[in-house]
């Protein structure tokens, strides 16, 4: 066991950790917003919207994230330069990066899983509470904002915590599209120093710590509202 490389590689490890956390925050943040829309479409939307949202969830949950990522990075990425004017535009430096494609595909994928969780939670909100809100004369938007959604998110919190951890564990896939995340740093250390296990172990410790932080944070959020059992 040789850990002396840590001293020369720690800036890279820190940068990798930032990339990993950034990917996680972006995909969970935007994915959650998208998931609310998808879940509402499945629960309250008109028939065509329901079918559309359900189809989206089935397709994204039925194919591996790796394939979705490669479809975006290699597939869409190879089609993008054909759009006239895009190469010269200010967007190109972002659109060229693997990070952009990783963030987009993780977001879309997370949204599909999260939408299923939220759909169940929306249906699990007691009917009486919604009726009570309606009898106060709340418009359907106010009802959604004040009662339906907060209650649903509260119900779904334990599952959401699990989904966020799963999302964290999906982020190393970004290394296959040239993102320098934590795992990619371990890979680079292996190539430079020919040590196989030590960098993997260090990176693993980081992931386990991040998992612990996520579960702790969710436990604190869950404890905000006392639940009577």
């Amino acid at each position: 066991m040789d850990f002396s490389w840590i001293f020369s590689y720690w800036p890279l490890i820190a940068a990798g950790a930032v990339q990993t956390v950034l990917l996680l925050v972006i995909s969970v943040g935007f994915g959650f917003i998208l998931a609310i829309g998808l879940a509402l479409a499945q629960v309250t939307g008109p028939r065509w919207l329901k079918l559309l949202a359900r189809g989206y969830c089935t397709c994204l949950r039925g194919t591996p994230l790796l394939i979705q990522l490669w479809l975006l990075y290699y597939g869409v990425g190879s089609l993008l330069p054909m759009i006239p004017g895009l190469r010269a535009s200010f967007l190109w430096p972002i659109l060229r990066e693997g990070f952009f494609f990783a963030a987009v595909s993780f977001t879309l994928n997370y949204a599909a899983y999260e939408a299923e969780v939220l759909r169940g939670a929306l249906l699990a909100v007691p009917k009486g509470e919604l009726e009570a809100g309606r009898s106060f004369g709340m418009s359907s938007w106010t009802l959604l904002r004040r009662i339906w959604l907060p209650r649903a998110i509260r119900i779904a919190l334990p599952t959401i915590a699990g989904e966020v951890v799963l999302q964290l564990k999906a982020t190393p896939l970004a290394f296959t599209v040239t993102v320098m995340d934590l795992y990619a740093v371990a890979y680079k250390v292996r190539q430079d120093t020919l040590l196989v296990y030590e960098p993997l172990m260090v990176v693993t410790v980081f992931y386990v710590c991040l998992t612990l932080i996520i579960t702790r944070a969710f436990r604190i959020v869950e404890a905000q509202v006392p639940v009577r059992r």
Partner: protein
Amino acid sequence: MSSSQSLLELLSPYPPGWGGVLLAGALSTVLISLGAYLVGIAIGLVGAIGKLKGNRPVRFVLDLYTTAVRAIPELILIIGLYYAGTDGLNRLLAALGLPSVEINGFVAAVAVLGIVQGAYMTEVFRGAILAVPVGQIEAAAAFGMRPRLRFRRIVLPALMPNALPGLANLWMCVTKDSALIAVVGYQELALATRIAAGNTKHYFLFFLASAALYLAITLISNVLFAALERRFRRGQPKTA
């Protein structure tokens, strides 16, 4: 020649087209998943019994196994186990004075994914066993059935309906996780797709095609698992 026709030719199953490569990849994905799934079920059953009935050290080791596997990203686990496994086996053989072996990619993939699946299966089976009414097990014991017979005749059939939703979930997981094997270089659907796409430069087409194949695997398994659950739940009262 129109471009849509040339796209179809690219997907044709015979050599100028790459459809055959994709289908072979899909077959190997299904085989890897099936192998890993069976390994996982075996580990899971033993692990669940160990967690419920084992003594302290056994329980501690099993807890460590399930926690570690579920906390570490699959990609890192798969790569770590792949290299550590092949390397460790060869060192062991060298220590025993035997020549080193080239480990078959298929066997390594099945073993690695099976170990990952086993951890999740352990938890699924543990929950399912706990959900079997105690009275049924006590009744079997009162009939004088030995623990092994009791497990085979009473516990196993009674836990299956409880475990099936979790098992179905894990099957979906393993078919998709098997794509990660591409990263260590064994040719299954994901890697076959990448090769086909890289050779023809039709990235979008091939990744879309392989996504469709994965989706087909998922949808077909959905139907099979629904039928399986109906079969295992026969005679049970319907809930709500």
